């Protein structure tokens, strides 16, 4: 009997084993991005921009050129790279603390300039790397090490929805929020990444895919519970949809 390999570790990732905690969905997202780069033939011309967060070492994993950026500044670093190497495929990989908090100005203005880069935005509603502090994306009532009594709306406001916010910016060409909580959604997420890189390579402007992701360790749950929690609590607040698709005309503006 012959066999055909239907799934194997992608060449888009190095041999290096992930340092992520067991069951952390960062790993799934890494795989998807790497697969897309390989399948689209972009890997060799790609530059990954790693941010500061648990994915700080993503430059060790993506099997292409890479640049590690200061906390929040990945879109600016990516802009510098893309402007001088316009034919390369430049993407950032950023957490929600990195992108939605300290890096707000940089992400807004990369979108504003219509910078031809792709942003992989991993929203796990917490600061993973530093041990579980509140992020702008932390849900109301969610306990973190700096919202020990649960996030309180009156003191800290309500969670920020980044994709919705960026959708108001003309230079944002493709924006979608996806999830990786089951194989169906994983497949869909991969399609979205493909779309985002297509937009970049056609120089249509800024593209970003927001991922609903987990942080079992800092959420204080096991991996499966985390996935369930994300599905039941995050997705209702952070709906999965295409927020902007300029390839179909200037919607949502």
């Amino acid at each position, binding site marked *: 009997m012959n066999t055909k390999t239907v799934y194997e570790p992608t060449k888009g990732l190095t041999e290096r084993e992930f340092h992520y905690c067991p069951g952390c969905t960062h790993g799934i997202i890494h795989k998807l991005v790497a697969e897309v780069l390989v399948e689209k033939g972009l890997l060799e*011309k790609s530059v990954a921009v790693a941010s500061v967060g648990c994915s700080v070492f993503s430059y060790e994993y993506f099997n292409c050129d890479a640049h590690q950026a200061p906390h929040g*500044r990945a879109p600016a670093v990516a*802009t510098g790279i893309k402007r*001088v190497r316009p034919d390369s495929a430049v993407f950032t990989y950023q957490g929600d603390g990195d992108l939605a908090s300290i890096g707000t100005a940089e992400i807004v203005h990369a979108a504003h*300039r219509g910078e031809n880069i792709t942003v992989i935005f991993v929203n796990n509603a917490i600061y993973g790397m530093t041990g579980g502090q509140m992020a702008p994306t932390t849900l109301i009532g969610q306990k973190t090490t700096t919202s020990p009594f649960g996030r309180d709306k009156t003191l800290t406001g309500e969670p920020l929805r980044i994709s919705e916010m960026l959708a108001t910016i003309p230079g944002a060409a493709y924006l979608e929020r996806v999830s990786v909580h089951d194989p169906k959604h994983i497949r869909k997420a991969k399609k979205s990444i493909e779309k985002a890189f297509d937009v970049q390579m056609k120089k249509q402007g800024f593209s970003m895919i927001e991922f609903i992701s987990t942080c079992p360790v800092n959420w204080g749950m096991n991996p499966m519970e985390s996935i369930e929690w994300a599905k039941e609590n995050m997705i209702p607040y952070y709906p999965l949809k295409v927020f902007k698709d300029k390839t179909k005309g200037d919607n949502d503006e």
Partner: protein
Amino acid sequence: MAKVLMKGNEAMALAAIEGGCDAFFGYPITPQNEIPEYLSRHMGEKGRVFVQAESEVAAINMVYGAAGAGARALTSSSSPGIALKQEGISYIAGSELPCVIINVMRGGPGLGGIQPSQADYNQVTKGGGNGDYHLLAFAPENLQETVNIIKESFDLADYYRNPVIIAVDGLLGQMMEPVDLEAAPKTEDAKEKKWAADGNSDREGGRNVITSIHLDPLELEQHNLKLKKKYDEMRAKEQRYEMIETDDADIVFVAYGSMARIARSAVKTLREEGIKVGMIRPVTIWPFPEKAFDELSKSVKTLLTLEMSLGQMHEDVRAANNGRFQLDFYGRTGGVVPEPEEIIDHVKRMLEKEGSS
């Protein structure tokens, strides 16, 4: 080429273009706005990159990206804007990338004022960012020298894979003076940067990574020692300075930038009056030209540091002096540009005091 009359900021911008600057990223701030303005007019026509960033923080990080991708990248700003770039500068130095930074200094602290100042000496030479790193820091005194240095700075940055900073005070940025843009040595073309992460990972040697991270302390220490080697090389090779009439001087000024120009006038006048003054003019402020002090003859009585600050360089003069000569300081701050007469008066008061004591 004949000399052309140019405004300091525009001359710097043009010099950067001549120096092979591929990309500029900056954010407006007085008194350096003519640099980005000039470049916004001229970079495009040369197929080069001009981006007005959303902030100084973003600008230095765009420089970080462009430099990492192998381009000759430039940013310019002024004092508080440089403060905002400190984290990024520390990353660039840590990642061993070349780039050029221009600081057209104004009075501080805080917003302060917008008149010429040298009160960024510390933030330029001691590093306002975290960690054990240094910038190669130049402080030219006139436009010709500024233009020459800027052209050369791209080569130096590439050679050392380290940021080079050119600190001029607002006066140099705003003044006009004739310059010969071809007087400076022709800038080398940027050598192939085999380490650049520019999206060609099918290169021989495999993929390239730009990072400042070394989580293992022993590894980070090795990295720091590697950086130190470069700094030691700079200390050995790049100390630049001018000795002005120091041979027989009793009093030796130490002054850089606009202050040195003004002090030159004072030297001239005082010499005419028979008072033996001379000057050490640091051209690099990091590495600080300690060698100059070793060249001084034993007959020197006093070193007089002159600054447009409350004595920031004076600390380096103290250290370099190492107890050899008497020290004195005269400075103006807050954007006040002193007149040669003030220096002359100060020297005369010094002499009187000595006479009377």
